[in-house]
């Protein structure tokens, strides 16, 4: 989540879900929380019981809207228009929280004079380079070339090697004009940027009635300030867009302006979809990151040597100044004694990435034959992945494929059960992939930890042994590594050194020689080298190789032998502070609410008694509160860095800057680097949209990643052949790829077949009744499903034109008790510029009554 990383410093939810109960206003947008996170919705209803206003902004009226006070319908893909309208409303009517925003955000910071906004360049920011198809961030920096802030998320290919920039850093604090009169200060830039997002324009672009939009704005601003806080909840409804990251950025700006970050009942809760998806970005099986959000060395950047890599990534100010400690501890954990100056700490053994190796390019690399072997562990891309036909083509083009699943999934049986084979177009003998389908174990049959949606690392116990040949994925990867080490033991080749030197000495337990998950967690937590004493917190990390730590942000999860904090089950009682510090471990440092220094005013006193959370204790000269303070405990609120001594790291952060991960300690309303597609969010239409962009001439995000290939065709904007907007989504009763719920009878019967939700006006036009068969088609393929005609979807009037919107859940496939067409046969591979996340929430399609001819089943 680079957007929360770039705006506040860490790419994760800023608040625990139980804090929602203290909110005075909860806005759910880009999420269908009651359906997809029902238990988290408990706290929203508890807030409602205490008088909060619940607002749901969504293209469809869903079970969340049924429980909301205000339902604002918006056309899918027009989120930034709505949020931009809110920002304009807040700034134009001076409703923002003055003391908070002036001191805790870079609202008053002055930006480079050569910066030009999309308003002036009609859809482009200054620095646009058409040949390299990217922005030069030079004109986005603070005036006076203050060092670009270091974001902890994924360091981005900013073209110019980072080290040159360091040399031109001026010594002092960034230039600030607290009177906000300077034309180039962030405040005026935002005013000019969002001037066009008037309520009338919001209605024209999103289709949401003006009075409803103003009601949302009024409810949000009324519930912000000293005495009241508001919270935002979002999920993939925001991320699955070609402007996904910028949508979340817009919410970040709103919350920072209204002073809701780091305060009880306030913040942004990212509702993640999988049980350990936050964990899978912290301890990343992602191409662009090493564990702990360290950027993966890049072949085309200044990462050639370890020294360059360290120098390039170490930010002069803020917490990231400790980067070398994290990097060296990681390499020490991976390569043990082989990580020394002689072997350049094992840095060369880490493969350099060449560019974008995320799942979308991986699909095409498989289809083009670049990838020959794939380990598919607990994912069902044929159903969950975009452009399902291209995924099947890719899987069919592999030499060998290992699938680890609890059932035979569509991704394992595509070669004999996909529609093409069923219809006779393709025969299994034409598919050359050698496939291993290994049965997997489930939580309850294996030890380990999940990291939940608000950074809470929780242990799950092994209660029974897995049946027959089922094994945990820890067992699989450990024994695969053991066998490979045996195979490569004697090879003379130096390039096999990393395999030999990798530390892989985990104790084996139980009848199936399971590697000890506790041992791996201890390595993640980090220990001193070579005596292996567990580290208590990241503060103990050293950059001289005397500490080894797998994931520095998780340091503290296993503070000493025998005390696994992730396995601690001590909740706060009714009389407790309600932060439940004894239940599991929340990274970093078991902190529940991030940036909670912002819950106190610049002088360290709580903004109000009702919202007291963390404050400065004058007597003991320490920060205390209901939670672990997100600030050096002994740094007084009044501390000012002595610029003459060129302070480094945390010394350069003054006492009233809660966002310590960012170099100037302020939350970035205007992001100088870290966002590829613009320092401030601007509305662009989805790549496939039924309408033209009404704000700028530029139709969609200039940096949206498009792969123009015959097997991944796109629709032209406002293409008459595909007039209807379509969104895909999840249901309460099913889980994303569908396998773990379509196979469970008591869940499958609740939503037994795939369907398409159609507004009654469109249904009347096409003479479609509920349960009639309809065919939905896009350039990628067509699927048939039963219609569900419902008033919960409504037509939108966009700029005078009536736009119909249909919706289709994407869990279904050919396996299980609940079957249906694969909705992702319709979607295209389009990527967000920063994260290459696909655009599944807004594209266009055609719809007709009837069924597909049997042969044409795609």
């Amino acid at each position, binding site marked *: 989540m680079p957007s929360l990383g770039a705006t506040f410093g860490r790419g994760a939810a800023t608040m625990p*879900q139980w804090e929602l109960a203290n909110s005075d206003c909860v806005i759910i947008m880009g999420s269908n929380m009651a359906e997809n996170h029902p238990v988290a919705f408990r706290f929203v209803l508890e807030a409602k019981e205490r008088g909060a206003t619940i607002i749901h902004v969504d293209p469809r009226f869903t079970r969340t809207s049924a429980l909301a006070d205000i339902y604002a319908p918006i056309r899918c893909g027009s989120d930034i228009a709505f949020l931009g309208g809110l920002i304009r409303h807040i700034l134009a009517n001076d409703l923002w929280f003055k003391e908070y925003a002036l001191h805790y955000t870079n609202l008053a910071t002055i930006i480079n004079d050569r910066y030009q906004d999309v308003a002036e360049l009609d859809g482009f920011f200054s620095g646009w380079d058409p040949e390299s198809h990217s922005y030069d961030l030079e004109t986005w920096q603070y005036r006076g070339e203050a060092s670009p802030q270091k974001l902890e998320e994924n360091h981005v290919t900013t073209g110019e090697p980072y080290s040159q920039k360091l040399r031109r850093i001026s010594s002092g604090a960034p230039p600030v004009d607290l009177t906000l009169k300077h034309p180039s200060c962030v405040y005026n830039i935002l005013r000019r940027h969002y001037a066009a997002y008037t309520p009338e324009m919001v209605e024209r672009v999103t289709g949401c009635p003006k009075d409803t939009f103003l009601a949302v704005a009024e409810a949000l601003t009324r519930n912000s300030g000293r005495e009241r806080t508001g919270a935002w909840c979002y999920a993939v409804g925001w991320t699955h867009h070609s402007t996904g990251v910028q949508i979340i950025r817009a919410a970040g700006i709103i919350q920072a302006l209204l002073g809701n970050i780091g305060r009880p009942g306030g913040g942004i809760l990212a509702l993640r979809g999988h049980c350990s998806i936050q964990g899978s970005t912290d*301890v990343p*099986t992602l191409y662009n990151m090493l564990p702990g959000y360290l950027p993966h060395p890049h072949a085309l950047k200044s990462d050639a040597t370890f020294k360059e890599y360290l120098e390039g990534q170490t930010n002069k100010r803020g917490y990231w100044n400790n980067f070398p400690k994290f990097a060296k501890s990681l390499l020490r954990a*991976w390569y043990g004694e082989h990580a020394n100056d002689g072997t350049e700490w094992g840095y060369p053994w880490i493969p350099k990435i060449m560019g974008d190796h995320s799942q979308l390019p991986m699909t095409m690399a498989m289809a083009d034959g670049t990838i020959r072997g794939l380990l598919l562990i607990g994912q069902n891309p044929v159903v969950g992945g975009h452009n399902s036909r291209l995924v099947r083509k890719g899987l069919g083009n592999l030499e060998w494929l290992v699938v680890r699943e609890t059932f035979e999934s569509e991704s394992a049986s595509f070669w004999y059960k996909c529609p093409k084979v069923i219809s006779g177009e393709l025969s299994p003998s034409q598919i050359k992939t050698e496939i291993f389908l290994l049965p997997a174990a489930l939580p309850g049959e294996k030890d380990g930890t999940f990291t939940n949606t608000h950074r809470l690392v929780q242990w799950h116990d092994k209660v029974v042994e897995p049946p027959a*040949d089922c094994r945990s994925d820890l067992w699989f990867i450990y024994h695969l590594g053991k066998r490979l080490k045996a*195979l490569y033991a004697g090879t003379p080749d130096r390039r096999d050194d*990393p395999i030999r030197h990798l530390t892989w000495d985990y104790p084996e337990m139980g009848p199936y020689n399971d590697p000890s998950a506790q041992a791996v967690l201890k390595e993640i937590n980090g220990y001193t080298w070579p005596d292996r004493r567990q580290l208590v917190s990241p503060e103990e990390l050293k950059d001289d190789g005397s500490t080894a730590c797998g994931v520095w942000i998780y340091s503290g999860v296993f503070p000493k032998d025998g005390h696994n904090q992730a396995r601690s089950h001590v909740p706060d009682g009714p009389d407790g502070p309600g932060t439940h510090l004894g239940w599991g471990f929340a990274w970093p440092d078991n902190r529940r609410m991030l940036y909670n220094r912002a819950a106190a005013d610049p002088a360290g006193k709580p903004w109000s008694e009702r919202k007291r959370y963390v404050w400065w204790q004058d007597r003991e000269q320490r920060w205390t509160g209901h939670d672990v303070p997100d600030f050096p405990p002994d740094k007084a609120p009044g501390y000012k860095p002595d610029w003459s001594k060129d302070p480094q790291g945390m010394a350069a952060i003054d006492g009233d800057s809660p966002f310590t991960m960012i170099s100037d300690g302020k939350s970035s309303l205007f992001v100088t680097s870290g966002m590829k597609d613009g320092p401030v969010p601007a509305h662009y239409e989805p790549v496939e949209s039924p309408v033209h962009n009404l704000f700028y001439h530029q139709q969609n995000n200039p940096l949206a990643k498009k792969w123009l290939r015959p097997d991944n065709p796109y629709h032209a904007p406002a293409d008459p052949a595909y007039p209807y907007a379509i969104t895909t989504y999840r249901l309460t009763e099913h889980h994303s790829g569908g396998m773990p719920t379509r196979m469970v009878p008591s869940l499958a019967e609740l939503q037994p077949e795939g369907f398409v939700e159609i507004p009654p006006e469109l249904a009347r036009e096409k003479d479609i009744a509920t349960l009639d068969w309809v065919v939905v088609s896009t350039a990628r393929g067509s699927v048939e499903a039963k219609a569900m005609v419902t008033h919960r979807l409504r037509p939108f009037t966009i700029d005078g034109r009536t736009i119909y919107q249909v919706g289709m859940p994407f869990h279904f496939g050919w396996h299980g008790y609940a079957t249906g067409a694969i909705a992702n046969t319709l979607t295209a591979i389009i990527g967000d510029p920063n994260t290459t996340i696909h655009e599944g929430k807004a594209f266009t399609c055609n719809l007709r009554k009837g069924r597909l001819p049997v042969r044409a089943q795609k």
Partner: protein
Amino acid sequence: MTITQRPRWRDKLSGIAQDWAIPRQLAGQDPSGAAAESQGSRRLRPRLEEADKIGTSICPYCAVGCAQLIYAKGNDVIHVEGDPRSPINQGTLCPKGAGTFGWLNNPKRLTTVKYRAPHSDRWEDKPLNWAMERIALRVKQTRDETFVSRLPDGTLVNHTMALASLGGATLDNEENYLIKKLCAGALGMVWVENQARV
């Protein structure tokens, strides 16, 4: 409800005699209440009390992180329900979480390794060790054939573009850690991804 085994005919007769409610009814008990109670109902206990091991687990579906109690008797799971101590769900679960028991002891679960030879049209059952051995060999063979130490312009890369690993958002942190450590740290794989972006 636990179903008692079928007793022999003598037990059956004595059972019928015990359940005969007329004497209790004549003794004044309420015919729609205590008199009608059968000995099956008297002996009834929740099956959770037969569990000899109860572990705390986390729901494997979404990221809310509800805690669950897994009741097991011997090596069989007999029930999964919400953990009342958790501040997140306090014993409640959504439909998927409540259906975890249906996933754990699902009769259709894969329990043996299935292998599909290239161009074949059916699955074959294979022993686990055979599969692991063959997978290790395929990984080594693919890596050896496609490993690139330096780019033509001399940049040190030490990677292979022919091996990929996909999946991980529903895996444990420990599993993700070892996958990245083995694939990136040792084998030089750059295609290492999971559904964090799906």
